[in-house]
């Protein structure tokens, strides 16, 4: 997967009047990647994508595709094609005419055009639908037309603007893996914009998280989830329990964070390289917290590799959300914090399950918390 840099975004800024939509973004996208631009709505991800397509012009900075500066190059002359959020399938043209449109604009000969259109339609499994009009297609099929229409031009980069947002849940899931398969098959670099973190994690090889025009982190899905760069990323990707506190111990092999929200300090088995006393945040994912029954008068359980009096807190279950494959428990800690715990429902029936109002111990491994400095 690791190839040469295909897209280089250098200090790109886009301002609309007073509003800065994209703020000094530096980014490199490699050839053959499935790259996702991820962020909440209004974070500038779509503007960035549109600048790649040439539909917006950067206020500052430059964009290079294949080493070529794209400044002044109009959208119809760029080696990129886009799948629009609304699909933008031409309503007055048949499926085949839609797909052939780009080739016609390029002056591709009729025979070759027909062949490439057929190939593209086969790729997206729309063969046999050539003569249909867009209003005779479902939303998913329209999207396939948009996809075929863009891919048939064999672009260097395919841009996808929220490709799955208009589909219903089941179709969305199916389309996820299919998009990834298509990308595998054609080998084109995909750059996708999405606000849906599941989508980005499931499909992309690398993601860039943006917020308020600023790039927050660029990493693989795993790193994004397990090693978030800051509170925004930790919170935006997945759900998280965030504890604000201060570093009280910071050695090369261990660190301790004291938080007023928890009755015991948080112990981690690595150094943080901050001065003691620095404000930090410990982010612990709900599935990385273990929940144990707490009989009256019972002693707190010990967590391996953690000194006594760390990483174990008593609490009471105050809410249960059963989601089928897993259950989310809200546990109220006496010190005031409310902690989310996620358990997979591996068995159909649990002898000693958890119920509302039950007293429990929460414990976590010294490697579970991600310590964030900002």
């Amino acid at each position: 997967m690791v190839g040469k840099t295909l897209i280089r975004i250098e200090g790109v800024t886009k301002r609309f009047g007073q509003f800065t939509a994209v703020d000094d973004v530096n980014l490199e996208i490699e050839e053959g990647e499935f790259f996702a631009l991820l962020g909440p709505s209004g974070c500038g991800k779509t503007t960035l994508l549109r600048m790649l397509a040439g539909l917006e012009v950067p206020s500052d900075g430059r964009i290079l595709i294949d080493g070529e500066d794209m400044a002044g190059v109009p959208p119809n002359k760029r080696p990129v094609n886009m799948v629009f959020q609304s699909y933008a399938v031409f309503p007055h043209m048949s499926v085949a005419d839609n797909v052939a449109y780009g080739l016609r604009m390029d002056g591709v000969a009729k025979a070759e055009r027909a062949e490439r259109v057929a190939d593209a339609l086969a790729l997206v499994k729309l063969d046999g639908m050539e003569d249909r009009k867009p209003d005779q297609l479902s939303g998913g099929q329209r999207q396939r037309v948009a996809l075929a229409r863009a891919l048939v031009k064999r672009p260097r980069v395919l841009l996808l603007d929220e490709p799955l947002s208009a589909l219903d849940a089941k179709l969305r899931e199916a389309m996820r893996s299919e998009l990834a398969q298509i990308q595998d098959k054609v080998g084109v670099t995909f750059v996708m914009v999405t606000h849906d973190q599941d989508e980005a994690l499931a499909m992309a090889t690398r993601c860039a998280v943006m917020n308020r025009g600023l790039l927050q982190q660029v990493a693989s899905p795993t790193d994004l989830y397990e090693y978030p760069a800051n509170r925004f990323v930790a919170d935006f990707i997945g759900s998280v329990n965030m504890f604000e506190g201060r570093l009280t111990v910071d050695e090369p092999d261990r660190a301790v964070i004291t938080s007023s929200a928890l009755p015991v300090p948080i112990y981690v088995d690595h150094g943080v390289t901050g001065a003691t006393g620095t404000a930090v945040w410990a982010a612990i994912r709900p599935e990385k917290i273990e929940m144990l029954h707490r009989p009256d008068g019972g002693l707190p359980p010990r967590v391996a590799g953690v000194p006594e009096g760390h990483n174990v807190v008593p609490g009471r279950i105050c809410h249960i959300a059963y989601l089928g494959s897993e259950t989310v428990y809200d546990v109220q800690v006496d010190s005031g914090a409310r902690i989310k715990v996620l358990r997979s429902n591996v068995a159909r029936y649990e002898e000693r399950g958890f119920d509302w109002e039950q007293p429990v111990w929460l414990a976590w491994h010294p490697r579970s918390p991600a310590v964030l400095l900002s």
Partner: protein
Amino acid sequence: MSREAIGPLDYLRRWPLRLWIALVAIFLYAPLITLMAFSFNESKRNIIWTGFTFDWYFKAFRNAGLLEAFTNSLTIAALSTAISVVLGALVAVACWRFRFPFKAGFEGTLALPIVVPEICMGVAMLVFFSRVMPWPAGLPWPLNLGAIIIAHVSFCFPFVAVIVRARLASFNRELEEAAKDLGASEWRSFMDVLVPHMRPALVAGALLAFTLSLDDFVITFFTAGPDTVTFPVKVYSMVRFSVTPEVNAASTVLIVLTVLLTAIGLKLQGREVAKSGGA
């Protein structure tokens, strides 16, 4: 078998609405039907029915003055429609796409010909063409109609612009971006994407412009010269002497023509809308 009870929304089955509909139908259509019926009347007077005849139609077709006026009207309508549609569509696109200084003022001025009383427009045109920019007399047909055509375009194209502007509001700008993204130039994406979207509005606007132009009397009356008489003006001058069934016959032809054109236009438009998915 008992009749089904009248539902709360079954207004059509209650007498007040039926009476209303009857009144509307009488006052809208009875005059037209009378006009048409008496075009087949044998008597020279439009009062008593004496017998059926096609004579008045033959007479009307042999009336050189009437025929010339009729041709003039159709020519003026066709030309001013063509110009109005292009001009109106371009104005609509400009207002829809661009921001420019005094845009609100521009759009307001645009609607002026719609709201200004026709008589004022007529007098204004008269003054303009007699004092400011006299239209050269004695030009060969159809150039001699130039002044009337310009006058007609000036009050027809705003209607086209308004209709097209409304249609453009439903245009998905991503369609145009998609066309460009796929390699289309500005012009190609305009022709391939925007124009097809506007087509129903263009048809509707053309229809409106055509009928407006065809039956305009007031403005035409003030701009027409002795050698550029249009059908409505001609009918008016004929009626001043007496209403002969000849006028009825000519009017009937005109009515049938407009109804036919409208029907065709509506049918075309309906098909377009259905094709574009009503969007």
